[in-house]
Structures are given as structure tokens and as C-alpha cells.
């Protein structure tokens, strides 16, 4: 090998490496949880669900169902008395005394076929005493509302969530910064608005599926489509009172998650059923209908904003009140409430802020995390108010944002300082790409054209000490196996981890594979695949593991060559010395080590590098003021803009062009970063134009793809542009921070602002369907 320049070592970091999972996925070889073959001992589970939004269970009679041939087990809440929950343990696996939403699990059946299990459900008799439901979060938070969780004060809860016993408020997060009341008098313009953001659903194309087996020793195995194998092991083991070592979760590829497969939703049900039929794997596959209202939903939001600026357009004050419709239980809703509270200023520097963010129990489906974790819902209103305030003070909306947006060192709403950020650059690039300030003529006389822009920020919302770990192991031929506990949901994390391992260790990207499927028995610990945190957190763990492996290898070679490790390196899978210019390929020492001279034994041996990462610097926030030193690990920021046309005859909106720019710190794989921006834009667009779970008296009226429409290939904008800004994160691998969720955060307000620009109307909330837009234009006298 020619002498290698230390400065010029080839690296896959920043390269568009092809997806590591692509070939498997295009040939049908990729295995998902429902593809695993269990043979003839497999039983099928179905769930008896509450037909009432709120009722007491008076009696459950399973005798007729039990005697149906082919039924192997029936379980009810009586069998499993333990509470379960991620932040607030507020539910049973199966309801015991009370049902709180339509779909709440009351009993479970395992049978030799789905048909028999389904028939058994019809034979289970449940007597209810129907109670008044809570169907609106603002009403639910009031003293007039019936109490849905009388035992709220007794539930176990983490120390950063504040339930209000005796009410339906499961968390109340407050910001008290500066002097808001005094600031209004100094404002030259003030805007006050109310928005209503409907419930939507994640709609992964793969429905939830889980298969559980309990063996004769009581050891439980769960094969599951999961974003959270370790959290599921933890929560289910604790709820059922078993050791973590007796609970094993195996999680193959996930066919789309978007948050819905995080935490525990239906997985505990099938584990509970399986305990009654030892030796049999039991599968629960949700129907698409169940997917829409018994898996998690994105919670609804009623949001009040008041904001004011001085005559120069500088933001002086904000007062925000959020009522989150957390639903019947709050696996994640309480933390969405917290995240929206500590981010409630939006990506702006505002000296005076008062925020009250409430998570409210209602008799609606259970709120889970969904891509953006409260940020798309909150920004939907906030970023429209910013536009309106700019107009009122007579400023261009982009100039207003440039003036007020967070810059490096700005004071945040929680009192801490903003880390290095490229948000101003994101605004500039986005405005340029959309042609801000110019107006193209509409494509037809009955159409109006408009442009809109919106900003966003979002931090990973997680416990302060969410950890990652990884190992890096070499095979005989010098190829590399990387163990991780984070999940490939489609976001591309396995590819990025392979790039990071290859880049750190000094091997070709193609020689790295990821040890799949994730299996809690063998895979290293990972908190959960959520919060857009893996590239950053698990990336650090993988990088640390690769460094450890590299150190072991170089120590061995240094000893053999009688050199110092500092003079050695690994380049393209070959250990080289910058000093002596010796070289040896990894395959010559990876497993068997190196012989000592004259047949005097061996040195080195199998290489397993280990690494971990856990942020150690996150501090708490004062429960009364929401102020603290460092509430979160970092914020990803960005901007989106759209150009659209409104059809005056129908109200139909066509998105002509979409532009996204995000500061990702460092794009480990730029094309995959752009793919996240595109996919997120279209999911955001879909939520803006089409999606709403139509809840009537607690019932979801549109639980199918026919009645709940998501964006199709026909709806996608023909011009969708994505730009990357890279202002490095101080503790990210190569400076990287996350991008998965952020790309759908500003889409709703960007579209709303463009609709206003086109026809001068604003709606209380999405979806901006043709019908709603047309009626709003009719009301405003724009059409007759």
C-alpha cells in the first residue's frame, strides 16, 4: 500500500451509501413480525372490546364462550391485577372495573382459528352500567366533568409529570417566564386565536401484530412489530411481576411505526393470554379497523394563543393554553403535554411567556406518540399566529421570522441558552427556493395561487437519562457485525449505524452488517426507537463500540510490531503503520490474533468492542415556572414553504411545490436525510388536507382506508425540494442530530399560511378539505 495521508482517509460518513436493507426488502426476503412461521401449535387471539365510551363493568360471563370447541383460553381483568404505563401507571392490561373508551379491552380469547376466536367473543356476555362520557378536553379539565380516574392520586408516576388528583388532568406543565401581564401594555400589535387540531392516526401500512409464547418454565417470548423491544420487556415484566430475565422480546423489521409501535399498546394483551396456554404461541394481529382506534392515535388539541410584538416587530409576550385530548389512558400523552410546554414559544426568543399545557383524560382512544410528538399540533396554530402578527404590524412574514427566530446563544423559553443553530440559514434557503416575494399567475382563471412558510423546532422528548449501547464484533474474514437495540422502521437507521461503524473502525461500508432481528436476549440495550434520537444517541454508542474494537486491534498489532498504537490506523480494512509503513489486513488477525515470533505463542484474539451513550447533563425544570438549566439534549430546527392553488369552484387545494430545509448538524447519509424530509412533508400534507378521525359520541366513524383517506401517489407535489443545513451538534456523532420527525412539523401551518395568501381565509383547524375551504370562502364572500 502506498503511504496513506492521515488527512485523506476515505470515509463513508456523508456518503450516500445504499440502504443496507434494500435488497432484502425488494426481493420479499425481509421478515416482518407477521411473516414468522410458528407451525401448527399457533393459536389466534381476538379481543372483546368495550362498546361504550364510559361504563362500569358489572359482570362478565365467559362460560358459553369457554365451552365453544376450539377455544383454548379466555382471560379477563381478574387474571391480571397489575397496573401498566410508561410515565404514569394508569391502566390495567384488561379492564377490571371500568371501561374508558370504545375499544377498551375487556376479555381476550385464544382459539385454534381466528374464526373460532371471533365467534367466542360474541358468546362472552358483559353487563355494563353506562356512565356519562367526557368528549372534550377543555370540558374534561373543568370541575363539572365526571371523574374518569378516581384513583389518579394513587398511580405511580415519574418525577417530571404532575397529575392533579381529583380532576381529569393527568399532567399540568407550566411556564412562567418574565412578566407577561405587564408586557401586553408595551405591545404595538397583539393576536389572539383558538385552534382545534383533530385526532389522527399513524396509519403504518403494517398493522400491529404480536405473537407471545410462555414455555413450561414460565419464560415468555414475544415476537412483535415494535419500536420499543426493551421498554416492552420492562413494562410487561413489571406489570406481570416477573423477572426481566424471563421476558424476551424479538423484534424484526417494522413495517412503519411513526410512534404507534412505541411503548405498550396491544402487546401486553397477547402476553397475558399466552400465560394461560403454555407451550402455544398465540398471535394477535389487529384488523385495520382496530388499528384506527384501539392502537394509539395522535391526540387532539385545543390551543389558545395570545402573542404580541412591539412596533419594530420584536416579540414581547406569549400566553398559551393547551388542552390535550389524552384519551382514556396516557401512555405518552402526559409527556407530549410536557414537550409542548417547554417548546411553547416555538423557535423564537420571547422574553415573557406564560404557558399552561394540560393533558386531559377523555373517553376517546388512547393517545400515543406520533411523529413530531405534539409539535405538529402546536406549531399548526403558533405559526399561523406569527404570520398574522407580522401582517398586523406591517412586516413581511419572513422578515418577522428572521428578526425573532432563535439564534446561537438566544435565551430559550425555559431560561437556558440555545446551542449552535442554523435556523436563520434554513429560513433564508427555504424562502429563496420557494421564490418568496414573487407571485406566479394561477394555472386557470378559477384558481388562486399562494405561498406560505413556517418554522419549527423540536427536541427529543424523553427521560433525561435515556440510554443506548452497542457492540462491534469482527468475523474471521474481517467483516464486522454491529449489535444494536434500536429498530429499523424505514427511517434508515441500520444503514446509518453501518456507516458510523465503518467510518469509526476504518473498514468499507459494505463489510458491515447489523445483527438482526433485535432480540432483548442478545442485543445491547436501547431505550426506544423514538424521539428522532438514534442517529445521535445510538450513533454515539456505535461509534464508541467501534473505537473500543479499534483500540483492541491496534494494541495487538502495536505489540506485535513493537510500535505505539498512535502510529497505527485502520484504513479500508487494513491495519497500517504511518511510521514503518507496514500493513496487515484485519482478516489476518480478527479472530485468531497474531503469532509471537519463533512459535512462542499468540497475542490478541476475538475482538468485541463495546460502547454506550447516555446524556448526563439534562436537568429538571421547576414545576411552577418551567425554568431550568438544560431541559433537553438539543433542538433540531428547520423551515418549510409551500406554493399551492385553491380552486374557487370546489375549494380543492393542490400543492404545486414544497420546500424543506432542516439543520441536521451533519448528514451522515444526505440522500436518506432528504428522503426523510420528503416523506415527512407528504405525511404532514396528508394531515393538513385529508386526515381526521371522526369522533362522534366517543365512536370513531371512519376506521377504514375508504373513509380515512391518506395521501396517495396522485397527491404528492410534483416539485418537492429538500435542503440540508449543517451546524454541528457538540455531542453528536460527527455533529449529527435527528431529522425523522421534524419533517412533518411545520407542514400544516405552511399550507394554512399559503391558503390565506391565496384566498384570504383561515380555518380553525385541519384538515383543509375542499368542502371546508369552499364554505370558508363562501362565508368570507370570496365566492358566491
Amino acid at each position, binding site marked *: 500500500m502506498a503511504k496513506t495521508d492521515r488527512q485523506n482517509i476515505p470515509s463513508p460518513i456523508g456518503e450516500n451509501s*445504499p*440502504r443496507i*436493507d*434494500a*435488497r*432484502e*426488502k*425488494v*426481493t*420479499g*426476503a*425481509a*421478515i*416482518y413480525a*407477521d*411473516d414468522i*412461521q410458528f407451525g401448527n401449535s399457533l393459536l389466534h387471539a381476538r379481543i372483546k372490546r368495550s362498546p361504550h365510551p364510559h361504563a362500569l363493568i358489572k359482570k362478565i360471563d365467559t362460560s358459553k364462550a369457554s365451552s365453544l370447541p376450539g377455544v383454548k383460553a379466555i382471560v379477563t381483568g381478574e387474571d391480571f391485577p397489575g397496573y401498566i404505563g410508561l410515565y404514569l401507571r394508569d391502566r390495567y392490561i384488561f379492564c377490571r372495573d371500568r371501561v374508558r373508551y370504545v375499544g377498551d379491552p375487556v376479555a381476550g380469547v385464544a382459539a385454534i382459528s381466528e374464526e373460532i376466536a371471533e365467534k367466542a367473543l360474541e358468546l362472552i356476555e358483559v353487563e355494563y352500567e353506562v356512565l356519562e362520557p367526557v368528549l372534550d378536553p377543555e370540558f374534561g379539565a373543568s370541575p363539572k366533568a365526571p371523574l374518569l380516574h378516581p384513583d389518579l392520586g394513587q398511580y405511580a408516576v415519574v418525577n417530571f409529570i404532575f397529575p392533579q388528583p381529583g380532576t381529569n388532568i393527568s399532567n399540568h406543565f407550566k411556564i412562567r417566564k418574565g412578566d407577561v401581564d405587564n408586557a401586553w401594555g408595551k405591545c404595538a400589535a397583539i393576536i389572539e386565536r383558538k385552534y382545534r387540531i383533530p385526532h389522527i392516526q*399513524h*396509519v*403504518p*401500512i*403494517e*398493522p400491529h401484530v404480536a405473537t407471545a409464547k410462555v414455555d413450561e418454565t414460565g419464560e415468555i417470548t414475544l415476537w412483535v412489530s415494535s419500536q420499543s423491544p426493551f421498554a416492552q420487556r420492562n413494562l410487561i415484566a413489571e406489570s406481570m411481576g416477573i423477572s426481566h430475565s424471563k421476558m424476551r422480546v424479538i423484534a424484526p*423489521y*417494522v*413495517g*412503519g*411505526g*411513526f410512534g404507534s409501535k412505541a411503548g405498550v399498546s396491544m402487546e401486553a394483551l397477547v402476553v397475558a393470554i399466552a400465560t394461560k396456554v403454555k407451550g402455544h404461541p398465540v398471535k394477535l*394481529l389487529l*384488523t*385495520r379497523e382496530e388499528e384506527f382506534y384501539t392502537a394509539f392515535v395522535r391526540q387532539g388539541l385545543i390551543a389558545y394563543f395570545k402573542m404580541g410584538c412591539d412596533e419594530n416587530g420584536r416579540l414581547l409576550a406569549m400566553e398559551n393554553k393547551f388542552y390535550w385530548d389524552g384519551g382514556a389512558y396516557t401512555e405518552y400523552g402526559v409527556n407530549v403535554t410536557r414537550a409542548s410546554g417547554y417548546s411553547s414559544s416555538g423557535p423564537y426568543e420571547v422574553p415573557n411567556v406564560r404557558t399552561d399545557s394540560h393533558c386531559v383524560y377523555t373517553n376517546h382512544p388512547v393517545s400515543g406518540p406520533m411523529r413530531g410528538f405534539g409539535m405538529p399540533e402546536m406549531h399548526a396554530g403558533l405559526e399561523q399566529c406569527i404570520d398574522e402578527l407580522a401582517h398586523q404590524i406591517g412586516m413581511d412574514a419572513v422578515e418577522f421570522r428572521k428578526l425573532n427566530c432563535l439564534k446561537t446563544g438566544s435565551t430559550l423559553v425555559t431560561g437556558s441558552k440555545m446551542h449552535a443553530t442554523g435556523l436563520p440559514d434554513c429560513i433564508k434557503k427555504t424562502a429563496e427556493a420557494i421564490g418568496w416575494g414573487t407571485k406566479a399567475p394561477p394555472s386557470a382563471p378559477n384558481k388562486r395561487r399562494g405561498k406560505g412558510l413556517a418554522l419549527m423546532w423540536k427536541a427529543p422528548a424523553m427521560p433525561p437519562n435515556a440510554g443506548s449501547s452497542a457492540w462491534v464484533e469482527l468475523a474471521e474474514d474481517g467483516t464486522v457485525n454491529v449489535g444494536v437495540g434500536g429498530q429499523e*422502521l*424505514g*427511517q*434508515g437507521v441500520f444503514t446509518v449505524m453501518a456507516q458510523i461503524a465503518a467510518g469509526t473502525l476504518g473498514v468499507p461500508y459494505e463489510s458491515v452488517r447489523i445483527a438482526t432481528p433485535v432480540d432483548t436476549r442478545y442485543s445491547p440495550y436501547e431505550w426506544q426507537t423514538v424521539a428522532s434520537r438514534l442517529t445521535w444517541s445510538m450513533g454515539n454508542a456505535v461509534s464508541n463500540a467501534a473505537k473500543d474494537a479499534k483500540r483492541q486491534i491496534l494494541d495487538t498489532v502495536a505489540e506485535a510490531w513493537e510500535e505505539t498504537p498512535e502510529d497505527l490506523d485502520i484504513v479500508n480494512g487494513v491495519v497500517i503503520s504511518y511510521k514503518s509503513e507496514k500493513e496487515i489486513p484485519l482478516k489476518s488477525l480478527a479472530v485468531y490474533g497474531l503469532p509471537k515470533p519463533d512459535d512462542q505463542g499468540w497475542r490478541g484474539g476475538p475482538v468485541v468492542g463495546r460502547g454506550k451513550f447516555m446524556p448526563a447533563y439534562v436537568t429538571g425544570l421547576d414545576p411552577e415556572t418551567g425554568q431550568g438549566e438544560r431541559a433537553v439534549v438539543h433542538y433540531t430546527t428547520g423551515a418549510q414553504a409551500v406554493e399551492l392553488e385553491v380552486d374557487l369552484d370546489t375549494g380543492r387545494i393542490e400543492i404545486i411545490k414544497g420546500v424543506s430545509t432542516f439543520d441536521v448538524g451533519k448528514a451522515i447519509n444526505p*440522500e*436518506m436525510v432528504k*428522503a426523510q424530509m*420528503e*416523506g*415527512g*412533508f*407528504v*405525511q404532514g400534507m396528508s394531515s393538513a388536507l385529508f386526515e381526521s378521525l371522526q369522533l362522534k359520541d366517543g365512536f370513531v366513524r371512519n376506521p*377504514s*382506508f*375508504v373513509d380515512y383517506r*391518506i*395521501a*396517495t*401517489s*396522485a397527491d*404528492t407535489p*410534483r416539485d*418537492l425540494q429538500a435542503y440540508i443545513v449543517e451546524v454541528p451538534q457538540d455531542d453528536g456523532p460527527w455533529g449529527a442530530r435527528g431529522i425523522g420527525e421534524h419533517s412533518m412539523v411545520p407542514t400544516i401551518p405552511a399550507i394554512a399560511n399559503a391558503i390565506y395568501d391565496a384566498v384570504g381565509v383561515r380555518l380553525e383547524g385541519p384538515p383543509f378539505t375542499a368542502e371546508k375551504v369552499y364554505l370558508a370562502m363562501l362565508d368570507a364572500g370570496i365566492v358566491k
Partner: protein
Amino acid sequence: MAFHKINVTINNELDQLIVPSNMTLMHMLRESLALTGTKNGCSAGECGACTVLLNGEPVNSCMVLAVECDGAKIVTVEGLAGKKQLDPIQEAIVQEGGVQCGFCTPGILISSHALLKRNPNPSEDEIREALVGNLCRCTGYVRIIESVKVAARMQSVTD
């Protein structure tokens, strides 16, 4: 429940199967033959994840009864590739990043492959129309549409 004996050619191999009257083609592929590349997204003919070729035409296999396939030729995602190389649409999707979670991908591949068979040079509108029954929640379709264009170009080179 009545059972039926059917002869069916799947991915160029002739099989004889005994299927119950109510079994769908999707279940036959996934459960009886463990051809799990064909995905079950809704069991209602709405998402397109279970799309296969039935006598050359793309169909939602959850909406076809297995017994209807007596004498038919079926192609699933497992049968798209040749012995040595991928089908152009598979190659293009890998190259263009038209796959993320991969769950809709088999259906997308089959629908695109069928489009390119009947129309080797589809316009953007024709591509969008051909894929409108295949829901994807990850990609925003941009790179999928691009992949079909690239596959059309690859095909015209090899033809």
C-alpha cells in the same frame, strides 16, 4: 367447509394445493406456501400491499379467493427477479431509495412491473395513476415515482 383441489403456477412452478372455499389468495400465499413477501395491510382491498400478478394483471390478493386461481399463473415479489439479476424495477428502487420500511414495497413493485409491461414508457401521470392503489406512508412517493422512470430507462437499454 368445503375443500378444493387446485392447480396453480406460482412464480413459474406448478403446484397442486387443497384449499378451503373461503381462503383468499393472500392467505394461500402467506400461510400455505410461506411466500410472505406478499403483505397483509388491510385485508379489504384498500392498501395494495398484497398486490400480485394474476395471469399478468395486478390484483389485490386479499380480494381473490384461492379457489378462483385454479389453472392461473401467479407472480409474487419473490418471483420478480431473474435467477441472476433483479428485475429493473427492483434495481431502480434500490438505486433511487424508493424503499423505506419496505412493507408496501412488494405491492409497489408488482404494480410498477405490470405498468412497465403494458406501457414501457409511462408518463409521470400514468405512473401516479398506476400506483394510486398502493398506499405508502414513508416515502411520500417521490422516489418511488422516480424509480419507475429509471426502471423504464433501464428496460429500454436492455430491450
